[in-house]
């Protein structure tokens, strides 16, 4: 069966520090991969999506970037965190145009 992992579960980082959140999927090949930020009252904001290795589409201009070095690995990064980057980050995968499967999320607090 397919599973999706995210780590770390929680992270506290100072302003100006780098960020790396990792997401991996097991049990499927060539998934579409997504990064969302979930905020109360604002729903799920799509940040990046990828349909293949090295293919990244950015939805929101911001302080973050994404990479897909392997078929089932998706990384969210930042060179210098801002206070406004605090939030709950979700990774998800899908195959085709059907349902998405979500990871457990990472709670990021920038201090």
């Amino acid at each position, binding site marked *: 069966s397919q599973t999706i992992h995210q780590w770390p579960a929680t992270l506290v980082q100072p302003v100006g520090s780098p960020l790396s959140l990792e997401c991996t999927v097991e049990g499927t090949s060539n998934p579409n991969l997504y990064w969302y930020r979930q905020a109360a*009252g604002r*729903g799920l904001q799509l940040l990046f*999506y990828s349909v293949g290795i090295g293919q990244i589409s950015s939805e929101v201009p911001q302080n973050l970037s994404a990479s897909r070095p392997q078929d089932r690995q998706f990384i969210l990064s930042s060179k210098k965190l801002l206070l406004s980057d605090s939030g709950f980050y979700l990774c998800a995968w899908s195959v085709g145009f059907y349902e998405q499967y979500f990871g457990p999320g990472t709670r990021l607090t920038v201090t």
Partner: protein
Amino acid sequence: AQRVTQPEKLLSVFKGAPVELKCNYSYSGSPELFWYVQYSRQRLQLLLRHISRESIKGFTADLNKGETSFHLKKPFAQEEDSAMYYCALTSSGTYKYIFGTGTRLKVLA
């Protein structure tokens, strides 16, 4: 603009009462509509999709293309239905999913 609107941030109903969570969309193509649910301390997960025309946990949703709506309904709410509900859409012409801002449903005893 492509958009999913959930007008209610919070909906409180009593146990046994009917529930309707509203979802309206704006999309130029032929969308696929979904409802996702997030129970306390659990992952966001699919509740139902319009192409399946199914009933899950007593919930149903009908796609009304004329009114561009996909409201979620249940005739008798249960306490375990308390959760955050998100309406979402995608299309065969894109890999993107657009989510609404969510409605928190509280079912009171």
